[in-house]
């Protein structure tokens, strides 16, 4: 059906359901994600907002192939997702908590390099890529030799972004990637993500409880409430008055 | 304020502490009409005809009687049999003591004696004493108080074998009726009967009201506390919880020397510490007789006496020194000087082509004395070139490895000397002993000699035969005598009076328990 000229969405969720629990005494369990469909096009960022427990993070894990689906399908670049190992280098993630984003025992260079090691790239080639990537995220090459403990929160998130981008993936999930950062640093990182997306054209899912930051970075925004999308709209819509009452409540915090 | 759980428990502990401080004056420990025996070990089973451990024997001896007993000089004395007569080299007549009765009041009759002896001989009982009794051709009771025994062949030690508690006379009528189970009860015609038993904790014995001796000085109750640890037993003796006990460690006299109210009596026994050398295992260096001989020569028995026993015991021989025979004194093992023996041992090893055989001495962990002997032995035989390890497994494992599987090089234990030389050395015949078949080489000439000596009456001819046997034993170097085993009886001289034989041949340490007296 799809016109071949239009690139397939990097991520295509079709009525995805995720149910937790229901183990030993099998009484139903808890539906964290209820029949959600979502497409993310290359070069596009979808923002995902909602309160804690609304199912944002679970949906993020679904998009990364980390979460088995209870029902529904997930396609990646038009194909069935398959095993995570087959998708090496095609997708990556940047998570909350800068202090745990990087392995505290590895030098930053090693962390950034790792996805390439997993891909099996020769060491010589890797070195150059890492230096270039660090420069790309605004860190000089000396950072490769440092341990995460010697870096500020913003710097660590930059290193994490460098690691996420090193394989030039088709899709990145940012899960509360800027929430723990201070305002002044948050803007640095948000701008960096926007710049890099312009350059590399990856599709992205930006998960946050902070509508202001999400609105700033996303093309489209999905508002999630109790496992469902209550509103999905262009980001520009959230500079005006959104439709759903819950979205409007969220808007109130940034007015 | 609500009291939390922690506070509650805290209070409890405090109360306990307070109780301790303000404590009532200490109550007297033992009741006045009781003497308390500190028993080093619990019995290993109830069946007197079966159990083969001293800890068991010592308890059986309180309850059961044997037809005969022995005195200080190993001479046979009347026991349950008032008198006996050997009417031919193979026939005996026993007169049962009138008035002897089991603790239930029933008089001991000939049927009990016959039944008991037949029970021992019955293969189903699986008594190891079967062989010691010789082969009984016929056993009859002309009347209730007379038993006649006809042996197939002369057996000098027959009477002596009857004097050991394994030949205890049990109430056969009750056994057959089912009111007495010898595997879970003790009931005999001896001085005491069991009133109460708490396994591993205590025994309470009361006088058998029907015991034939009526002149007892012993109090009504004899209780026994099981205290395996030497130190704990010494402490119990000091604080008066027990009145008498036994030790195998010769240093107890030293350790109790400061306590003026505690006496330590050594009791010489016909028992001796011994080493079994595994001649039969192909994997043992001792498969070669020369290595065994070298080992025997290199053992420094004097050092064992000096270092383990502080010189308090004596070097011993296959025919125990306690019998007063000098049968084995002139074999090279005993007659040569240490230097000569060492050089001879080295020569033997060289001859065998094994200048440094690797061996392991196995001793049970049951008694620390074994460990000490093993270590002194280790040092002395190392001088001849042996490489020696020591292992001290628990008793069961030790017994299994040595007597069942024969998986050992040298095993250290002790041998009961009983009351006649022929009884001890009889063990050198594996066909007779059976228990040592796993490691004892069968020497037909020795077997024949041992068979012969059994039927020889005590006297010069027998002594000559014993010398001959001793030479053969020494030459085989298969089962080695080390030093005499002395028992040490410690008692509170302020609470009891004891009567103890100077020498004992049947581990009947408390033979005269009926003559003990409480001084409280």
């Amino acid at each position, binding site marked *: 059906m799809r016109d071949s000229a239009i690139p397939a969405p990097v991520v295509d969720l079709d009525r995805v359901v995720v149910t937790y629990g229901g183990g030993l005494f099998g009484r139903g369990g808890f539906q964290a994600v209820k029949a959600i469909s979502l497409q993310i096009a290359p070069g596009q960022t979808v923002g995902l*907002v909602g*309160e*804690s427990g609304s199912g944002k993070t679970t949906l993020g894990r679904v998009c990364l192939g980390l979460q088995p689906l209870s029902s529904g399908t997930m396609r990646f670049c038009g194909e069935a997702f398959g095993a995570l190992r087959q998708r090496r280098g095609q997708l990556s993630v940047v998570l909350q908590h800068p202090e745990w984003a990087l392995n505290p025992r590895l030098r930053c260079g090693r962390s950034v390099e790792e996805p390439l090691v997993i891909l099996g790239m020769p060491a010589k080639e890797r070195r150059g890529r890492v230096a270039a990537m660090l420069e790309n995220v605004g860190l000089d090459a000396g950072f490769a030799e440092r341990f995460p403990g010697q870096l*500020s929160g*913003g*710097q660590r998130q930059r290193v994490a972004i460098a690691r996420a981008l090193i394989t030039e993936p088709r899709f990145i999930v940012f899960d509360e990637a800027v929430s723990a950062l*201070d*305002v*002044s*640093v*948050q*803007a*640095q990182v*948000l*701008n960096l993500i*926007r710049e890099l997306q312009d350059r590399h054209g990856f599709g992205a899912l930006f998960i946050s*409880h*902070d*509508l*202001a*930051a999400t*609105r*700033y970075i996303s093309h489209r925004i999905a508002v999630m409430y109790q496992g469902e999308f209550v509103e999905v709209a262009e*980001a*520009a819509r959230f*500079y005006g008055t959104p439709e759903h009452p*819950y979205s409007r*409540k*969220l808007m*109130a*915090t*940034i*007015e | 304020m609500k009291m939390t759980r922690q506070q509650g428990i805290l209070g409890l502990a405090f109360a306990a502490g307070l109780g301790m401080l303000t404590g009532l004056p200490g109550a007297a420990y033992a009741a006045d009409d009781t003497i308390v025996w500190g028993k080093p070990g619990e019995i290993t089973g109830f069946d007197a005809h079966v159990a083969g451990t001293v800890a068991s024997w010592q308890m059986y001896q309180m309850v059961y009687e044997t037809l005969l007993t022995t005195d200080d000089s190993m001479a046979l004395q009347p026991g349950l049999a008032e008198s006996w007569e050997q009417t031919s080299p193979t026939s005996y007549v026993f007169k049962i003591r009138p008035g002897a009765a089991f603790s239930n009041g029933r008089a001991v009759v000939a049927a009990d004696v016959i039944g008991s002896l037949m029970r021992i001989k019955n293969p189903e009982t699986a008594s190891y004493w079967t062989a010691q009794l010789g082969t009984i051709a016929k056993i009859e009771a002309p009347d209730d108080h007379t038993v006649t025994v006809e042996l197939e062949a002369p057996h000098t030690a027959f009477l002596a074998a009857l004097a050991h508690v394994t030949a205890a006379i049990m109430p056969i009528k009750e056994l057959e009726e089912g009111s007495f189970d010898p595997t879970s009860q003790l009931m005999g015609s001896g001085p005491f009967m069991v009133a109460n038993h708490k396994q591993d904790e205590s025994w309470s014995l009361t006088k058998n009201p029907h015991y034939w001796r009526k002149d007892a000085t012993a109090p009504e109750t004899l209780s026994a506390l099981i205290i395996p640890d030497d130190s704990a037993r010494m402490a119990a003796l000091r604080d008066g919880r027990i009145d008498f006990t036994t030790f195998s460690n010769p240093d107890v006299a030293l350790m109790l020397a400061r306590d003026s109210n505690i006496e330590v009596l050594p009791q010489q026994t016909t028992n001796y510490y011994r080493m079994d050398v595994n001649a039969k295992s192909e994997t043992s260096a001792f498969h070669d007789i020369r290595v065994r001989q070298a080992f025997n020569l290199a053992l420094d028995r004097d050092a064992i006496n000096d270092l383990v026993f502080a010189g308090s015991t004596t070097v011993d021989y296959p025919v125990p020194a306690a019998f007063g025979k000098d049968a084995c004194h002139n074999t090279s093992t005993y007659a040569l000087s240490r230097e000569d023996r060492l050089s001879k041992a080295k020569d033997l090893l060289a001859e065998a082509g094994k200048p440094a055989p690797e061996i392991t001495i196995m001793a049970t962990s049951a008694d620390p004395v074994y460990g000490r002997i093993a270590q002194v032995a280790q040092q002395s035989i190392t001088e001849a070139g042996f490489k020696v390890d020591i292992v001290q497994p628990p008793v069961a494992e030790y017994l299994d490895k040595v007597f069942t599987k024969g998986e050992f090089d040298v095993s250290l234990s002790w041998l009961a000397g009983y009351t006649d030389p022929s009884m001890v050395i009889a063990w050198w015949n594996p066909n007779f002993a059976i228990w040592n078949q796993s490691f004892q080489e069968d020497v037909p000439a020795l077997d024949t000699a041992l068979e012969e000596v059994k039927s020889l009456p005590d006297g010069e001819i027998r002594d000559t035969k014993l010398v001959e046997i001793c030479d053969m034993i020494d030459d085989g170097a298969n089962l080695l005598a080390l030093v005499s085993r002395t028992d040490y009886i410690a008692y509170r001289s302020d609470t009891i009076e004891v009567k103890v034989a100077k020498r004992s041949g049947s581990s009947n340490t408390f033979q005269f328990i009926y003559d003990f007296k409480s001084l409280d």
Partner: protein
Amino acid sequence: MNNIVSCEDLVITYQSSNGPVRALDGVDLTIAEGETLAIVGESGSGKSTLGMAMGRLLPSEAGREAGRLEVDGMPVFDMARDDLRRLRRDTLGFVFQNPMVALDPTMRIGRQMQRAMGRRARAEDIHALLERGELDDPERVANSFPHQLSGGMAQRVVVAMAIARSPRLLIADEPTASLDASIQDKVIGTLCRLRKESGASLVILSHDVHMIARHADRVAVMYGGRIVEQGTTARVLGAPVHPYTRALLKAAAGHEKPGEWLTPIPGTPPLLTGRCAACSFEPRCSVSRDICRSSRPKPRTVEEREVLCLLAGSEAERKEVAQ
């Protein structure tokens, strides 16, 4: 108007395994009775330290090095223990960032409320107080354990506890940061309403400039352990004069237009180990001059607010604003 808090050149230092860290580098501040003051700053700016110092609730590794802090006329750092305890009990009320942490998980809400209200508080009093905190079913709440409440409800409980003894000064440290966005505004609304009812002063410590703009009378901006700009909310947030305040407002997402880029502040906040001899914002400042590197700014009044900037109000600075 009397001052409930007055603070002069307060210096507080933490002893850490890597040496001393100066959290407050000379704070001058007064809070009037009945006013709502917001202290804005990023993490590490010293705002929490300042807030906790008002009740001398700093951890044991923190110590006052210099300066004076009086609350209700009492020298907080030079009081006897019992007096301090009384000050905390009767004069101060605290609302902490995370209500789940601030409430004892093993004690029912009612009991914790009672501890805050005093021994003689009856169930009705507790329920009434919870109702004032806008908790719908006070009986159920009082019988609950903290984990049985939502974050918003728990924070209302904390707010109710803070006003239990009608304190004269309420200190709220990031009172909504751990709550879901949709309820933040309501909770802070409750807090402000209760303050107004009791006439107490309120100090809100926050990094959220939008929230502050809506609720505070006055704003103090902290940076590097000092208050760099303070004045009425309208003045400070509407027409900031300190380069840091300006940069902060430009960097915060929320008021940009669609497609517009935010202007981040380059660099990272400072970590002081001793007295800062220069302007601590200088390394990140877009208008800095040589003088900023060599002398420590003193408080000046510029355009109806107090500001700690050597250039504020100067020609060069005005030019920058105009751009």
